[in-house]
């Protein structure tokens, strides 16, 4: 299990809400250590794809493999074992509003580690420091800003040292500076923890700043148009749509 090996493989995935097909025949591989971007216009099913990857929704066809193990074919125990290796941050933080930040981050630790209360408090302090929230242990989510809530959500996601970090629109609702800081934090995490990162976003600045692999979902044809490094795709994707989508940033970038 080294960097560059296939980590997540999506095979022939078709997603449906009732009779409505969202996306069909998705086929791509996320390698270990990648920062993988799921991109596409609004309403193309980016978040839906993420929800399929983390098993919140069942695919109409196809499967998602983690290190060669199919999540869909794994039993309840197998799914739990896979889930424990993931950290997920939700679009609006997903923090439990009735708990302080410390309690939020401590929850998975209490659930899955044999550590005592003092040791858990230490780990929580470290995790909050890692996302730049040292000293915010006793705040409630409603008492901190949106950007801080996202970082606190990240602290909870990395509580158990996951192998894969999923982000649903990490920079939605953040100012450009906060969103850049969050991007840098994600890269630092990737480098220091050696995790694989999967991100749903349509922020072009983020896509080029951190992504080294990606898939483009098209709302029109209801399938993926292209996949690969976003910087390469911008120059020489086979599809006009993908190039146009990515080139919009070119004017700002150059």
């Amino acid at each position, binding site marked *: 299990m080294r960097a560059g090996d296939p980590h997540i493989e999506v095979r022939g995935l078709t997603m449906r809400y009732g009779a409505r097909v969202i996306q069909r025949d998705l086929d791509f591989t996320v390698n270990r250590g990648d920062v993988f971007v799921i991109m596409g216009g609004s309403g193309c099913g980016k978040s839906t794809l993420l929800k399929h990857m983390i098993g919140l929704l069942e695919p109409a066809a196809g499967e998602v493999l983690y290190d060669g193990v199919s999540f869909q074919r794994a039993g309840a125990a197998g799914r739990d074992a896979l889930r424990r290796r993931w950290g997920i941050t939700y679009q609006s933080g997903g923090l439990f509003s009735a708990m302080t930040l410390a309690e939020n981050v401590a929850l998975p630790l209490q659930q899955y580690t044999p550590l005592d209360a003092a040791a858990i408090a230490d780990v929580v302090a470290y995790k909050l420091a890692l996302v730049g929230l040292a000293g915010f242990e006793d705040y409630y989510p409603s008492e901190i800003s949106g950007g801080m809530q996202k970082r606190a959500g990240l602290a909870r996601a990395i509580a158990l040292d996951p192998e894969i970090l999923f982000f649903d629109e990490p920079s939605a609702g953040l100012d450009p500076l906060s969103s850049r800081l969050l991007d840098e934090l994600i890269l*630092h995490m990737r480098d220091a923890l*050696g995790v694989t990162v999967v991100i749903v976003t349509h922020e072009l600045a983020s896509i080029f700043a951190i992504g080294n692999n990606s898939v483009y979902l098209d709302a029109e044809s209801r399938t993926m148009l292209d996949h690969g490094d976003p910087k390469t795709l911008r120059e020489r994707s086979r599809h006009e749509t993908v190039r146009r989508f990515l080139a919009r940033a070119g004017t700002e970038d150059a």
Partner: protein
Amino acid sequence: MSVAAAPRAASCTLERRGERVVLVLAGDWLLAQGGPSAAGVLHRVTASGARELGFDCAALGDWDSLLVTLLHRLDAACEQAGVTLLGDGLPEGAQRLLALAGAVPRRGEAPPAHPPWWRRLLDGQILAGAWRELLDALGFIGEIVLACGHLLRGRANTRAVDFFWFLQQTGPAAIGIVTLISVLVGMILAYLGSVQLRQFGAQIYVADLVGIGMVREMGALMTGVIMAGRTGAAFAAQLGTMQTREEIDAVRTLGIDPTEFLVLPRLLALVLVMPLLTLYSGVLGMCGGALVALGMDVSWTQYLNETRNAVTLTHIMTGEAKAVAFGVVIAVAGCHAGMRCGRSSEAVGKATTRAVVSAIVWLIVADAAFNILYQRLGI
């Protein structure tokens, strides 16, 4: 990070090498198995009187956040005690994480206070809060009265579509549960009365008891309790969720009065529906009573005649007056809780609870007041 077959226990020992003290780390430092207590290690380091602290990780196996957590605490403690921490002996990844954790300085400001309930009681905060809430409720009722004034002058932002929607939600959709409860309450009243009346051979008066009891009292009260739990709670949850999603802010900034737009249709629908449901409940209750009476040698016709003699229009009107008042109480309690809801998911739960509890309390209070009034007026 290497992959070890079986994890070995984490351990650390302190060694003096020249002028520096070295912490020798060994074994697997994993969250999943735990390790030596950080406080103990910290104590040993400070007790050693070291000026410089180094690390020896030759025997270190697998590690994760457990190790970096210890380092993070050591780092902070060393800085405070003026000890230099030399991280060069550590694995590269751990050094990087340590640097990242120390990148943003700790916030000095104290977090907002969250005192326990007894503290707030002693400080008088709870009493003051209750007083504020009472004033706020009066203000809310005032807003509703003003909105009603606007409505009467035809200048309110109340949409008929909303009104009919809530009419459907509070009325026809509640028929099932009202039917069930009313029939059962009618039967309960009949059983209760028949035990006593049978001793005088006066079973026929079960019809009077059930008829008057349902129409004057139980019909309105039971419908009120059902609607408080069903509709009052729904109002609070709807408006509370709108509050958390900033929908009410949007209504306000569009220049629309939220009381006219959101509260009035709910209030009017419930006030219109409550008397109808109460009437229905009374009829169903009498049917329930009749079922019981049939089992006690009272025929359908006897029961029907007796009920017709007993239940007068005055009885019906007293019940209807209550129903209107109860409708107002439930809608105001539900909407007030929802409109004043906080911004978190927890707050929506609290608002719903408060809506139901205050609706039921004020229902009973209002019912008692009505009964005293009727007693005085002799009706």
